[in-house]
């Protein structure tokens, strides 16, 4: 067994290396040789291969993601932008909030419980690494058909994993989404979001500066899990005395992560941390190269000092291991003792593994022999960038021409009633409490709103009542019909959801889930969606603070629907003024805000009743979204509405049913002039919400809408114990509740 040192690499330039098995292209391998002026060592090859992977380097998406910076709106609230572990936003009163959404799609399909669990763990460490206390999580999820046998394997595992990990960390799970569609059958989407809070002065960055400062690895021991493709390298370089094969999916230990959180926050409180990075994808390779690349000097690491779970691990494997619950900190020598003392208090293993040097190289040693000698920027920040070809798919025109206007609509009141019941009971429109009931939403004692409310809201200051709200949305059906509009509709819905609860939208994060970038049609969807999102954020004044791209979500030739998930963060000065969704007071008036047009393309109705996807999604009017948001926020601040609920998939009837069930009160609806009952109930026109207005506030509210030019139509009253559409049908709440709440328990038990 020979150690492939730098010296050895220099002496043996012609050794065949398994670059293709590690996922590198020939030209990428040649480029590594050119950078180093020799062949890479096995350890270097492993580092480049993971850091230049799509997941870490964003090589296919980078050219499009640049728009988020180039088109960023002027916004004083942004304290830390794209590129760090997570963006940071000023929310006033000296507080800063950091939030980010990330994907853990592929691992969650292979091993649903651990895949989803470690997805939560990873995003929580990203937030922690910014210097923030994590205060809430939420999970946008997409599964295959609800009644498909494999969904019964994937969904319960994912939900148990999110709960098992998140509940054990003491983070309230306050929202998210669950969507079923056959396009996700072989590629479920498990996105995870975390929000953290800190004071401005507590912001920490991932950089290694200050010659002589120590590099400390702390948290779990490093094991052989999550190594994935790199084991190819190990088997090439080493003989059969190596470690037993471990799962490619990492295994999480939330107890260790909880200790890591509390320990890290105490380290921050005592100002013992110069720079910090969590260990996620690509493990130590990523953490050391990113810290060194962003800092002022170089870094020297003694890899054999890393505490191991498995003593037989090779240096390559240690560099690649994605063992969970680890952090890497840069610490001044004079503060090391106190640093280690705090780690000991929390029973967290901490080891000095290296130091910041005044050179410009990242140098890694194994028992005194050098195995890595690279310019860190070439690993971390100067990877390959591809201008992938893209082209509008040829089927796009036919898809858009196949409009929902051709679908037969209900002809009788009886038929309309049956379709309403069918839609609200369909898996996508049904209550998700079977899932969210497995997540702790109360812990930390600051939860103001949690699912199924329009946005999740937590208090961040007990004295002043300052709070933040977050919503995530994304409609793959809309995006399939028109990716540019679809991305903007996701943004608009999430923005609207935040405003509906009374919070002012400030900034966004996103998770862009697409098929293979090597398919020009998919690449076109990606280009269109990013362009739409960047343009939309510019118009709404909400900058992108960061996010994540997940590509290759496809089975064979079939890609998932393009699924840009958008998370909007908002702020509310006093959570006492929040607007819930429940219709709770008899006699209050229901107003429909916005314009309702005949827009059924991509709608829930077209899916549930006709299994149809075609035509165009609802028209986007971001100016109107902004106005609607201003009205909803003013109404909340001045106490003009008691409840508000955004209108999206399923249309008005879905929103009214949800608000009625939530409040335990019925509603009498009247179809307004100029609309037929079907369009009134099922249209999914954007830029709309329904609000419940106390009679005493009616005039003030309608005056405000009138003065600002927002259409507000009185459509009914909160009353009784059924949802009645006058002149058409009546649905008792009990029947609606059974339909709406019975679906998921019946499917998943």
């Amino acid at each position, binding site marked *: 067994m020979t150690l492939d040192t730098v010296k050895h690499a220099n002496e043996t330039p012609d050794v065949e290396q398994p670059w293709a098995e590690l996922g590198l292209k020939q030209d990428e391998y040649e480029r590594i040789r050119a950078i180093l002026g020799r062949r890479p060592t096995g350890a270097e090859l492993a580092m480049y291969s993971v850091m230049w992977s799509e997941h870490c380097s964003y090589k296919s998406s980078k050219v499009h993601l640049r728009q988020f910076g180039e088109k960023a709106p002027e916004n004083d609230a942004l304290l830390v932008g794209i590129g760090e572990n997570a963006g940071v936003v000023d929310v006033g009163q000296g507080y800063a909030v950091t939030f980010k959404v990330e994907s853990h799609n592929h691992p969650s399909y292979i091993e649903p419980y651990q895949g989803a669990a470690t997805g939560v763990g990873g995003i929580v460490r990203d937030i922690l690494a910014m210097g923030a206390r994590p205060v809430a999580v939420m999970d946008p999820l997409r599964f295959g058909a609800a009644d498909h046998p494999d969904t019964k394997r994937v969904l319960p595992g994912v939900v148990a994993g999110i709960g098992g990990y998140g509940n*054990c960390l*003491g983070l309230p799970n306050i929202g998210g989404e669950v969507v079923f569609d056959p396009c996700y059958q072989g590629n479920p989407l498990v996105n995870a979001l975390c929000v953290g809070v800190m004071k401005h002065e507590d912001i920490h960055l991932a950089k290694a500066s200050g010659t002589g400062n120590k590099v400390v690895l702390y948290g779990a021991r490093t094991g052989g899990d999550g190594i994935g493709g790199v084991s190819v390298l190990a088997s090439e370089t080493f003989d059969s005395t190596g470690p037993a094969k471990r799962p490619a999916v990492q295994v999480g230990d939330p107890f260790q992560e909880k200790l890591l959180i509390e320990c890290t926050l105490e380290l921050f409180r005592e100002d013992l941390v110069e720079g910090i990075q969590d260990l996620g994808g690509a493990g130590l390779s990523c953490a050391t190269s990113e810290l060194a690349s962003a800092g002022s000097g170089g870094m020297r690491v003694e890899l054999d000092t890393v505490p191991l779970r498995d003593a037989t691990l090779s240096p390559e494997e240690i560099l690649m291991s994605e063992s969970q619950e680890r952090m890497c900190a840069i610490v001044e020598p004079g503060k090391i003792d106190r640093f280690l003392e705090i780690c000991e208090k929390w029973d967290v293993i901490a080891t000095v593994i290296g130091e910041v040097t005044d050179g410009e190289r990242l140098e890694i040693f194994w028992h005194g022999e050098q195995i890595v000698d690279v310019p860190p920027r070439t690993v971390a920040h100067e990877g390959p960038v591809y201008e992938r070809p893209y082209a509008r798919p040829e089927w796009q025109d036919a898809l858009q021409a196949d409009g929902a206007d051709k679908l037969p609509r209900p002809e009788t009141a009886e038929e309309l009633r049956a379709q309403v019941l069918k839609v609200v009971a369909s898996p996508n429109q049904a209550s998700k409490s079977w899932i969210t009931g497995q997540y702790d939403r109360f812990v930390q004692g600051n939860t103001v709103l949690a699912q199924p409310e329009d946005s999740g809201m937590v208090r961040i200051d007990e004295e002043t009542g300052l709070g933040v709200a977050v919503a995530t949305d994304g409609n793959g059906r809309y995006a399939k019909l028109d990716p540019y509009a679809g991305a903007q509709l996701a943004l608009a819905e999430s923005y609207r959801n935040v405003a509906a609860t009374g919070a002012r939208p400030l900034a966004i994060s996103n998770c862009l889930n697409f098929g293979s970038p090597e398919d020009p049609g998919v690449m076109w969807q990606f280009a269109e969606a990013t362009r739409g999102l960047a343009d939309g954020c510019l118009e709404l004044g909400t900058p992108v603070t960061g996010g994540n791209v997940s590509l290759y979500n496809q089975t064979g030739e079939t890609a998932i629907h393009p699924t840009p998930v958008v998370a909007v963060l908002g702020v509310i000065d006093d959570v006492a003024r929040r607007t819930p969704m429940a219709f709770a007071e008899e006699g209050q008036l229901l107003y429909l805000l916005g314009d309702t047009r005949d827009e059924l393309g991509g709608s829930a109705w077209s899916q549930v009743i006709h299994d149809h996807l075609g035509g165009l999604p609802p028209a986007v009017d971001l100016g109107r979204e902004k106005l609607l948001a201003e009205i909803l926020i003013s109404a909340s601040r001045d106490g003009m509405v008691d409840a508000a609920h955004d209108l999206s998939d399923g249309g008005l009837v879905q929103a009214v049913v949800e608000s009625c069930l939530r409040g335990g009160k019925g509603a009498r609806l009247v179809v307004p002039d100029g609309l037929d009952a079907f369009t009134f109930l099922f249209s999914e026109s954007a830029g709309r919400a329904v609000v419940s207005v106390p009679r005493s506030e009616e005039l003030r509210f309608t005056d405000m809408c009138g003065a600002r030019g927002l259409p507000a139509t009185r459509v009914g009253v909160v009353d009784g114990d059924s949802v009645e559409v006058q002149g058409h049908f009546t649905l008792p709440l009990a029947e609606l509740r059974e339909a709406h709440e019975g679906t998921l328990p019946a499917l998943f038990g």
Partner: protein
Amino acid sequence: MTARVGVVTFPGTLDDRDTQRAVRIAGLEPVPLWHRDKDLHQVDAVVLPGGFSYGDYLRAGAISRFSPVMETVIEQAKGGLPVLGICNGFQVLTETHLLPGAMLRNNHLHFICRDQKLRVENADTAWTADYEAGQEISVPLKNIDGRYVADERTLDELEAEGRVVFRYLDGNPNGSLRDIAGITNAAGNVVGLMPHPEHAVEPLIGTGRTDGLGFFTSILKKLVTS
């Protein structure tokens, strides 16, 4: 001068800060207690909050009972120190045998988080005196190992001595025997329950109800008047 209530933090404890807040809202002084410290710092009562102490490894509460702080808690509880165990704290109390019985995995095998209706069966304990017997309250419930079990004789004894303090209403959430949500020791100073009163002490937050505040005002009255 008010009374001091110690709130224990084990590694993996989650609801310690929430419990300290509830104690403060009730007008008491919260005192953080660390699992490695045997000294209770002259507190007048102790709360063992919820969470997953020591990762629930081996069994929920099984390792915590051996921690240094518990040595003193057990000793002083036997001498009358008021102790409240919430959720994981209740599990710790059964492991220490300050309270009888044990908690098993929920009968449906899922974590469950919901607003739970309870009936106060015994309003004479140190932690329930501010309620009335028979009163119905709603507080959040959130656990995966919440199914209370004990042998028939123990259950009969608990019933006969009025030591069942809370019972689940509107559906047993986890298969607990005789719908038991919380119990007390014979002296009435040690109480354990699975639901979370500390999450129901402020309007607007959580369920928006304040039904849990009575636990903390009960102990305040007991400590300040005695």
